[in-house]
């Protein structure tokens, strides 16, 4: 039974696929590309998330609960208090900070732990016993440090023989002996563990802790305990389940992952279109063959099945290939770009790729599904063809007729436009993406109608104008009258061009906006800060005296100060930034921000704050609205050294912030100092006199401030360049995806086009009889290709601009909570369109030459079909 079945299969499905190998291969490749991209994005993201979660578990261990400060450290007395709770089975005090290493730019994560208390909660941070006498208690003497394998490797490479770790502290460098390696910490995480007493003393954190890790007694109702703690913990201190942090990490990159997956889905859609064109042409070419099959007894359903079976073969091949490519792509992405695909969400980790059966299967099914969907309409068309009529060779095949009714396309376009106004669903702009899909499909469905209208007009012009070459007239007339076929070969290139244009506009808009934003956020040419041992991210403070000294240093014409604190307003969300800025004029703090909304001043005496767009978005429900201004909300202001003062503040404006996705609040330095009694600030923006150099000013500052040895001046241009560099890196992957999509689109068009030409060889044979030279034929075909490509590029551009508008005004604000200014890079797009048309023309010309010179056109004329 098998052998005849196999033979039957071969004759009916495989042989036709083989015969159209080139097109089949392209369809397979397109499906594979979509599957590969989608799978790779998800694999990489999963790997990064897993790594992130592992990293979180490394530092929080098996704790059931954490107690931490909403904005800063907590009082160590809480350790004693919480240790008395009956529900607490084990408790460990922790200090976690980023410290500066001598002669190293990147900060190092330092964990200060009590090895005796942490043994049960974070066993992986325990120093193993070894032959040299190291054991978990070796750290207690405060001069020793345990390092993660990755840090050990780094030290061996950069600080051989790696027996010391040298911290850069305000009082000078401090050497710690490496007591051993924490072999339980896997992966690329660089981490050093010291005793908690040493951590307090080295970093001046006496009396303070970063957090407490708690293991609860068996049978404890954690939710009830959390509720009790919410009431009993002092202000500014909260209890959280460690999963919350993992969830935050996942949420952080979710929007990014969704965006990239959508790109992959569009690639898959292109693949689907390719299968569609492959099979549609196949139906046309094989009309007689299919008719013959019908005549010898294959039912209509059977012929649908046959076509779908071919699609399944294509789809499966594409899916398998795509899965393999996906893993390869993910692997190289992880090695070359990093787990966040360049977006910077997972700094300092090196994720490991693992096999993900569910995601793999899902994307393979999507790939096969795309092929089947693509083959559906052609299969039905094949079944509909009446055998007798198809066998009768009355006309040359007339392609797919006039195409779908334009009403459906128009309805989809309209629906897409309406969907763009819908809000996000659970933080993801699902309806926005649906809008993009509708616009895309609508445009493709409308293409035949547009092709017809356009080329009919063209044909009318051409025939009215004497001297129009016959080849051009023929080409245009054909396009005008066979719009559906034109539409089929256009669809892939149109989709790809639209996608590329949309992404390009979005990225350029984004980049321009970021550039402007950087200008506004960093107005001064120089920035002064004090690198701190506690963290390179949290510079040391400048108190009022230091501020005055800085202002009075020769060469400094103007100095303004900024300080950034983190605040947790909602335990389920990452902390927001509180930016404290000095101002010279009464109300200056806000006006120097990239404001998108500004409210008039009110006389209620409440401190005014300026909130970022994402803050406005995320914490909308907390802001009590009032008419005519931005409303008020309760802001917990951090007190020194810990604790909070809750203050109602008024929203004076909303500003655009690309740096802090989780929200930021700007408050004036004077207000902050008045409310908290804390006038310390961190960073100084410096304007220098004409004759002053940064180096000279820095020397002057160091002489005047001998107690602040670690002062450092940064040039703003360098910061801007670095920021834009990070930005460009982030979008490298999207560019790569676009390039892939465009190449697939072009290849798809070439394939469809080639199919069309092969199918039309009788027509060309007839024209040869009628006196068209081979060259003229080639020119005619190339003209058709160029006209199609030009139209594809044109429609792609128009659609691309629409999609870009959805991306810029809907997807991005909903995904990331920020807005941007729409900016069309006209020149780049023109170049892109030209390149697209040239490439398409060249490929048409090559195709025309290849097909016309290899096919026996003269004989084709005599063939019965």
């Amino acid at each position, binding site marked *: 039974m098998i052998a005849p079945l196999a033979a039957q299969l071969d004759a009916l499905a495989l042989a036709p696929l083989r015969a159209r190998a080139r097109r089949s291969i392209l369809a397979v490749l397109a499906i594979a590309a979509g599957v590969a991209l989608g799978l790779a994005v998800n694999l990489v993201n999963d790997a990064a998330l897993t790594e992130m979660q592992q990293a979180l578990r490394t530092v929080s261990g098996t704790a059931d609960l954490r107690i931490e400060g909403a904005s800063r450290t907590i009082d160590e007395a809480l350790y004693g208090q919480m240790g008395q709770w009956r529900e607490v089975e084990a408790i460990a005090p922790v200090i976690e900070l980023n410290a500066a290493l001598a002669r190293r730019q990147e900060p190092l994560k330092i964990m200060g732990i009590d090895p005796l208390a942490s043994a049960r909660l974070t066993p992986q941070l325990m120093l193993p016993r070894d032959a040299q006498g190291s054991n978990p208690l070796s750290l207690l003497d405060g001069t020793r440090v345990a390092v993660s394998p990755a840090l050990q490797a780094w030290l061996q490479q950069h600080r051989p023989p790696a027996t010391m770790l040298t911290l850069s502290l305000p009082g000078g460098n401090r050497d710690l002996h490496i007591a051993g390696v924490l072999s339980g910490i896997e992966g690329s995480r660089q981490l050093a563990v010291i005793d908690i007493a040493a951590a307090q003393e080295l970093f001046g954190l006496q009396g303070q802790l970063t957090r407490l890790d708690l293991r609860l007694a068996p049978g404890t109702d954690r939710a009830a305990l959390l509720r009790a703690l919410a009431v009993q913990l002092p202000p500014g201190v909260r209890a959280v389940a460690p999963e919350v942090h993992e969830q935050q990490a996942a949420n952080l990159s979710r929007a990014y992952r969704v965006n990239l997956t959508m790109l992959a889905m569009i690639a898959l859609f292109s693949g689907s279109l390719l299968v569609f064109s492959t099979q549609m042409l196949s139906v046309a070419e094989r009309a007689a063959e299919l008719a013959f099959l019908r005549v010898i007894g294959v039912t209509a359903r059977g012929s649908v099945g046959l076509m779908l079976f071919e699609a399944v073969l294509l789809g499966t091949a594409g899916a398998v290939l795509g899965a393999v490519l996906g893993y390869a792509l993910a692997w190289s992405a992880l090695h070359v770009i990093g787990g966040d695909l360049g977006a910077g969400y997972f700094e300092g980790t090196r994720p490991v790729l693992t096999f993900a059966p569910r995601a793999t299967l899902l994307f393979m099914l999507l790939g096969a599904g795309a092929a089947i969907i693509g083959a559906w309409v052609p299969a039905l068309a094949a079944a509909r063809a009446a055998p007798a009529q198809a066998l009768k060779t*009355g006309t040359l095949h007339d392609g797919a007729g006039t195409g779908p009714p334009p009403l459906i396309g128009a309805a989809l376009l309209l629906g897409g436009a309406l969907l763009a106004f819908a809000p996000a669903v659970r933080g993801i702009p699902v309806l926005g993406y649906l809008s993009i899909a509708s616009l895309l499909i609508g445009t493709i469905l409308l293409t035949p109608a547009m092709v017809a209208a356009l080329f009919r007009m063209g044909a009318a012009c051409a025939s009215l104008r004497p001297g129009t070459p016959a080849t051009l007239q023929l080409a245009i007339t054909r396009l005008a009258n066979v719009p559906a076929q034109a539409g089929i070969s256009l669809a892939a290139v149109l989709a790809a061009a639209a996608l590329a244009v949309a992404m390009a506009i979005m990225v350029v808009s984004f980049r321009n906006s970021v550039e402007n934003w950087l200008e506004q956020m960093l107005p001064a040419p120089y920035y002064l800060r004090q690198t701190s041992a506690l963290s390179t991210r949290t510079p040391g403070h400048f108190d009022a005296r230091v501020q005055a000294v800085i202002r009075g240093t020769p060469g400094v014409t103007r100095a303004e100060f900024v300080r950034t604190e983190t605040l947790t307003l909602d335990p389920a969300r990452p902390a927001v930034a509180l930016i404290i800025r000095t101002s010279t004029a009464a109300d200056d703090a806000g006006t120097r921000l990239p404001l998108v909304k500004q409210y008039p001043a009110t006389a209620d005496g409440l401190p005014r704050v300026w909130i970022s767009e994402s803050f406005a978005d995320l914490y909308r429900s907390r802001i009590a609205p009032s008419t005519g201004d931005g409303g008020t909300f309760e802001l917990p202001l951090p007190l020194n050294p810990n604790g909070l003062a809750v203050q109602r503040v008024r929203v004076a404006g909303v500003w655009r912030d690309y740096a802090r996705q989780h929200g930021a609040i700007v408050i004036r330095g004077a207000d902050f100092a008045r409310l908290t009694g804390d006038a310390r600030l961190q960073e100084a923006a410096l304007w220098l006199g004409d004759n002053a150099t940064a180096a000279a000013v820095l020397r002057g500052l160091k002489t005047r401030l001998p107690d602040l040895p670690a002062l450092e001046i940064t040039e703003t241009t360098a910061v801007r360049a670095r920021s834009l560099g990070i930005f460009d890196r982030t979008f490298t992957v999207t560019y790569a995806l676009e390039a892939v999509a465009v190449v697939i689109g072009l290849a798809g068009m070439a394939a469809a086009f080639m199919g069309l030409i092969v199918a039309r060889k009788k*027509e060309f044979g007839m024209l040869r009889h009628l006196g068209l030279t081979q060259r003229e034929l080639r020119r005619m075909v190339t003209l058709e290709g160029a006209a199609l490509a030009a139209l594809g590029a044109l429609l792609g551009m128009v659609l691309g601009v629409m999609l870009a508008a959805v991306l810029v005004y809907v997807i991005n604000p909903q995904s990331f909570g920020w807005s941007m200014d729409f900016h069309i890079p006209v020149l780049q797009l023109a170049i892109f369109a030209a390149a697209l048309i040239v490439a398409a023309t060249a490929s048409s010309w090559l195709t025309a030459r290849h097909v016309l010179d290899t096919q026996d056109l003269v004989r084709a004329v005599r063939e019965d079909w």
Partner: protein
Amino acid sequence: MLAVTRLAKRYGNRTIFDNLQLTLQRGEYVAITGESGIGKSTLLNLLAGLDVPDAGNILLNGQDLAALDDAARTRLRRVHMGFVFQAFHVLPHLTLADNVALPLLLLKVAAGERMQRARAMLDAVGLGARGGSFPRELSGGELQRVAVARALIHRPRLVLADEPTGNLDPERAADILALLRDAVARADAIGILVTHSDVAARTTQRVLRLAPGGLHDVTA
């Protein structure tokens, strides 16, 4: 005048014909018959300048097709020849008028004149009212009428018809054959009808049978 002298053509080792002679004057309308595979199509291709002989000459109006390059032969074909095919080969995406006017388009005849002559031609084949229709609306017989009109619109010297009734029922076939005969006569062209059908052959003035030795007049 069409004068074929000492024509020879072989494919590899197989000699299709060797030393074939044929002379036809304007107004002559002949049929060429012969068994399948004997070389009727090859002869037709050589006469149309779509293929080149291994030896011999094909003189059409004094020009030797064998001596011309492909482009020159193509131009000669464009100006002086008309074709009717078994499978009609009417372009589906053109209207009937456009199809008929196709040779004029290639000859760069102005649009207005093209349409005028196409309409006249369609009138002549009995489809005068349907110039704006598309081929899919027509029956096979009607399509072949269009093809005949297309073959003659540019007043060719030589009309080559290759089994023009192969796809038609006898009634329609008779129609077309009569139409073709009359049209060739009216145009004062040389007509060559390649056919299997004796019935069809009998509509011509002379029947030539292609055999390995050459063309033999077998007019009954």
